[in-house]
């Protein structure tokens, strides 16, 4: 059945809230590590691995919950409307990761250009090497390709709504009885949910592989820098979105 019971919904909600809490904890730990153990690449790698592991666990949990609840994950009521309006297949666009790298790298080089030219080195994202930039660029092209594949799949699924059987069943009803349900309808909606769940898993896989590949290109120090910025952005968007929604009286 496609209907999500309230307990299932709360499970989904819980999964998300736990994820947010975990992101906050991870952020704290990353910041602490950076402060307590500057230059300790081993420690850096440990916390980076931990962050990746948490992403893996979250995506696994979503994958398990998705088949029965996919529509909820595509338009989660627990996310803010601002977040939901920027969702790409129930999450963030993988290419956001690349844009963030460029933004961080650019701002760090711009703000320290003079001292950089004087030879001062910080090892931060502003100092991506030619090789690193080449790899990031290759990854970017690869992600675009994968994103487009999934976007096209998604487009096709969205168009399926206006196809056999749903469009025909809807048209069969007499004029006064719009939206009546029957087994055929439930079967069709279930099939759509399952299809959504499949594409969600693929999208999460792409998000995860993007993150892993990107972090592998960076030095541990740069990777921590990146993860901190990414988590700050994610958590801030959530909070800013909440405030917006409250202002609009929608929560």
């Amino acid at each position, binding site marked *: 059945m496609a209907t999500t019971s309230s307990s299932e919904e709360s499970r989904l909600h819980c999964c998300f809230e736990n994820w947010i809490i975990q992101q906050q904890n991870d952020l704290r730990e990353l910041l602490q590590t950076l402060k307590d153990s500057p230059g300790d690449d081993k420690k850096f790698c440990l916390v980076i691995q931990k962050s990746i592991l948490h992403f893996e666990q979250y995506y696994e949990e979503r994958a398990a919950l998705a088949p029965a609840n996919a529509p909820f994950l595509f338009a989660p009521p627990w996310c803010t409307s601002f977040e939901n309006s920027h969702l790409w297949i129930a999450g963030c666009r993988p290419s956001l990761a690349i844009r963030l790298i460029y933004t961080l790298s650019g701002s760090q*080089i711009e703000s320290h250009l003079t001292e950089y030219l004087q*030879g001062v080195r*910080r090892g931060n994202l502003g100092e991506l090497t*030619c090789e690193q930039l080449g790899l990031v660029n290759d990854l970017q092209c690869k992600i675009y390709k994968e994103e487009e594949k999934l976007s096209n799949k998604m*487009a096709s699924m969205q168009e399926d709504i206006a196809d056999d059987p749903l469009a025909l069943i809807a048209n069969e009803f007499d004029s006064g009885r719009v939206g009546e349900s029957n087994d055929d309808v439930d079967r069709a909606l279930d099939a759509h949910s399952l299809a959504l769940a499949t594409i969600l898993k693929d999208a999460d896989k792409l998000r995860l592989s993007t993150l892993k590949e990107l972090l592998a*290109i960076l*030095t541990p120090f740069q990777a921590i820098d990146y993860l901190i910025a990414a988590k700050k952005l994610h958590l801030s968007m959530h909070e800013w979105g909440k405030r917006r929604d409250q202002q609009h009286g929608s929560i």
Partner: protein
Amino acid sequence: MAEICCESKSLSSSPSRVARRKRMEIRRFKFVSGMPLTPQENAKRQKKVLGPISPRECDNAVDNSSNNGVIEVSRLSLDLNLSSNEASLEKSSEVNTVVVVDRCPKFGMTSVCGRRRDMEDAVAIHPSFCKRDGQILSRMHFFGVYDGHGCSHVAMSCRSRLHELVKEEIETDEVSVDWRLAMARSFKRIDDEVLGSSDGVDANCRCELQAPKCDTVGSTAVVSVVTPDKIVVANCGDSRAVLCRGGRAVPLSIDHKPDRPDELQRVQAAGGRVIDWDIPRVLGVLAMSRAIGDGYLKPYVISEPEVTITGRTPEDDCMILASDGLWDKVSNETACGIVRMCLTGQGPVLSPSSPSENDDNAGDSSDKACSDAALLLTKLAMARNSGDNVSVVVVDLRRDS
């Protein structure tokens, strides 16, 4: 009408990313009239997109620079082969040394997709691409930056063909090279090639579906041939070559913008109009007045290059070739200043913690310096929110480097 449009333009007052688009979304027209892309086509297209910026290309570039930079040193007496203008230039510096270093200048390049979703830039670097038999000294090195619009395939054709055409043209000259003529002919030939044969169009690019002849696709081309005594630059479009001489920035090409007075006049004389749509555009579409390809905008948009021939002097530090992804964000002066600092050793040294730091392909620190300079300029353009592909080639012209 067109003039009024242009006078009312306010380039600097609307620096939004959209406004900087060089072309009024030609692609969008094609999507409307054409079919949606299937995943296969998208895959193909992306494969194509990957082409110009694969790490292999980059590695080659660096490898080439180190090889050619180190190996090719010839000794010869002054009276052997110097042309008259070379001799006069040389007098000021090394007349009595009798040793002239005849080798490829060191270079480095960066070419990234950046904030755009399509990679339409292409870079071609061919050290020692041509040796003229009669003149042992005349080793020539080819550098080209191509910024495509509408699709990537015209830029790709330029990348794979233009140096060959230039080579053919200058090899046919028996005595001395008429550079203006050779460049004009080469550009005409590449233009004919990209417009003439749709079979020549690589099936991997995204416009492949849209029309048998992709008439709405084009590319800028800024090409430089560096010889022992001069720098020849042929330009068509709004990519740019800049020479850094004694710390000053000397532009070696002038962008073909539709509102450049002489270009505006030429377009209008040909019966075309320049309309200010965010920025001045030929027929309200293309934001440059010359380009390779773009058959649908002929005869207003022409492929004839403007050629400059500049004698090399001992004061020359470097040359920068780049697409407008850089020049829209970084001034000639800033770019020259930064590259100069990088080349004179005050600039970047790799961060000690870099994971990919291995000097396998950077046996010579100067090559590294050129690459780092190109990289730094690219990053600076990105920092300043360049929304375009960014391609930068840095050539070290110092004689004692």
